[in-house]
């Protein structure tokens, strides 16, 4: 035994980020002479790759690697770090035709790109109104037999779910694949070239007219599905301003465990480990200090805004924008501001 004792805890490096971000020094992989091409057409909702898009790119990577091919991302109206997501090549598609909902124009562009580069496979994320729809339009126009709801990829064989989710079909990968979420792990170990091989812009040929998103009653949306949540803690009282802020911003209301115990909110509005695990795009917390159970409930939130008087609260550390002030006053001011802006003053 050596005389000096080592303390392994001091040597352990703590991971700072919870998602597996590819490190900056990830090796660059280049494929110069691919045997075939695999197209990946991400949805790029909000102009960014969604986690479903990244899973689909991971699936494209698997198919390409099994056949020494290259992944070509067809990026329709959107930009992101495609090199880190696994793209060897990039086809950039821009133009006014792609503002709003335009599945038919997207299908036309993909078919044109397929005619130009003749890829062996074309992958879409199987989302009901976006990728899954565009992919099925493409398959129907080309007379291809698409494989929807692809669950797993093993070499060039795929497993897709059918018969109302009761059977799995194993088959050779067809030309058009619609990939379910989590069918493959996203690319994280390497960077790829993402070399631009074509830039196109297309004329729209859509028959559908997009009327835009409709205002909905945010309270009709279950908390687990809400897009934007305004939540209050026990210090928030009276509760009049919180609904005001929520209603003006079109947000769903939530509350902490203490606020629900106090009867300020119904139990189905409780956020946290013993309530609902939420994953909105934005979580706005008024006077919530951030108990571990509450933070667990908002673990998958993309953005957190916290208003709290305590600068050292756990919620303030978690927040992307923290305001050290009295929650009650800020809530009232925000409700007024939103109402003014909505009326267009």
């Amino acid at each position, binding site marked *: 035994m050596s005389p000096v004792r080592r303390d392994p805890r001091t040597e352990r490096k703590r*991971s700072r980020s919870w998602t597996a971000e590819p490190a900056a020094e990830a090796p660059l992989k280049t494929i110069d002479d691919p045997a075939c091409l695999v197209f990946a057409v991400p949805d790029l909702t909000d102009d960014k790759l969604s986690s479903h898009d990244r899973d689909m790119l991971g699936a494209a990577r698997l198919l390409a690697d099994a056949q020494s091919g290259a992944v070509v991302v067809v990026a329709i109206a959107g930009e992101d770090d495609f090199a880190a997501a696994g793209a060897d090549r990039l086809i950039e598609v821009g133009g006014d035709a792609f503002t709003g909902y335009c599945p038919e124009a997207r299908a036309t562009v993909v078919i044109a790109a397929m005619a130009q580069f003749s890829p062996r496979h074309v992958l879409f994320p199987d989302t009901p109104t976006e990728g899954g729809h565009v992919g099925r339009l493409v398959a129907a126009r080309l007379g291809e037999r*698409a494989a929807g709801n692809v669950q797993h990829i093993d070499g060039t064989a795929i497993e897709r779910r059918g*018969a109302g*989710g009761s059977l799995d079909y194993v088959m050779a990968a067809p030309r058009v694949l619609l990939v379910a979420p989590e069918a493959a792990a996203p690319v994280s170990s390497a960077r790829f070239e993402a070399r631009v091989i074509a830039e196109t812009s297309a004329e729209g040929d859509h028959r*559908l007219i997009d009327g835009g998103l409709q205002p909905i009653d945010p309270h009709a949306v279950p908390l687990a599905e809400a897009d934007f949540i305004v939540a209050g803690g026990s210090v928030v009282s009276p509760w009049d301003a919180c609904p005001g802020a929520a209603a003006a911003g079109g947000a769903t209301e939530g509350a902490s465990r203490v606020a629900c115990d106090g009867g300020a909110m119904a139990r189905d509005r409780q956020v946290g480990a013993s309530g609902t695990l939420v994953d909105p795009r934005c979580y706005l917390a008024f006077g919530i200090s951030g108990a571990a159970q509450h933070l667990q409930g908002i673990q998958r939130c993309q953005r957190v805004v916290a208003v709290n008087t305590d600068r050292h609260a756990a919620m303030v550390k978690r927040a992307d*924008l923290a*305001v050290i002030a009295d929650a009650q006053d800020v809530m009232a001011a925000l409700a007024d501001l939103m109402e003014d802006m909505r009326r267009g003053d």
Partner: protein
Amino acid sequence: MAIDVAVLLSAGRHPVSGRGRRAPGDHRALEMALGLSLPRAIHAGDPSAPMLGDYLGMGLDGVTVLDVPSDADPVPAFISYLEAAPPDLLLAGCRAENGEDSAMVPYIIAEALGFAMVPAVAEIVSIDDGSARLLQALPRGQRRAITAPLPLVATVDRAAPPPRQSAFAKARRGRIDIIDAVAPTDIDRAAWQVRPARQRPRRLGTQVSRLSAAERLSALTDVPAGTGRQLVEPTPGEAAQAIYDYLIEQRILTPPAKAKTKDQSP
């Protein structure tokens, strides 16, 4: 103006007992169609299936059944039947509960007939002047308004209003018109390997397997750190403005100028 609506009805399958039933997408489509006019209902498959009574009991006079074997591809039969008398609006469920369940049938029919195609419809707002105003169901309870020209194929989302009950007497009275159809046997499908669906484990927070055990644990249990912009002791007005600006910047809220033009458009 009476509009000619047709509905595609498929045989459902109860997920637990495996018994035949109305397919959950299709009976919503039929409910939606019954709200417009008395639709033509079309089924491809076995004309003696008891579940046809469940559809008839919702208030149909009759169902047209294209008699095709269960291992055949029903799409050519649908296309030849619909080409003879094309409807203005063709409704179907988003996906079947039996067979390949690829959700491709409405797409292939729309392509063959040259119809426009709208997926995941939650509500038909109005139909006039040769176009239909629809609400499409999106994730997170959102709705998108779409105006589409007739003739049109639309698939009905599970967010659409639930169907009425099926009445036994109406089901008894309902007529089943059998049409012999030519259906090619599905050759490709014979090559597929079929097995019972296996639930795959859901992915946990981290995906990188080369991390150490301690790092994987901390990835699952640690609280993710925010990007941490802090505003210390602002006035309520400043704080509200800062939060509002952040929400606009992150596109959580629509900027007022845009919102105004949206309000003015019909």
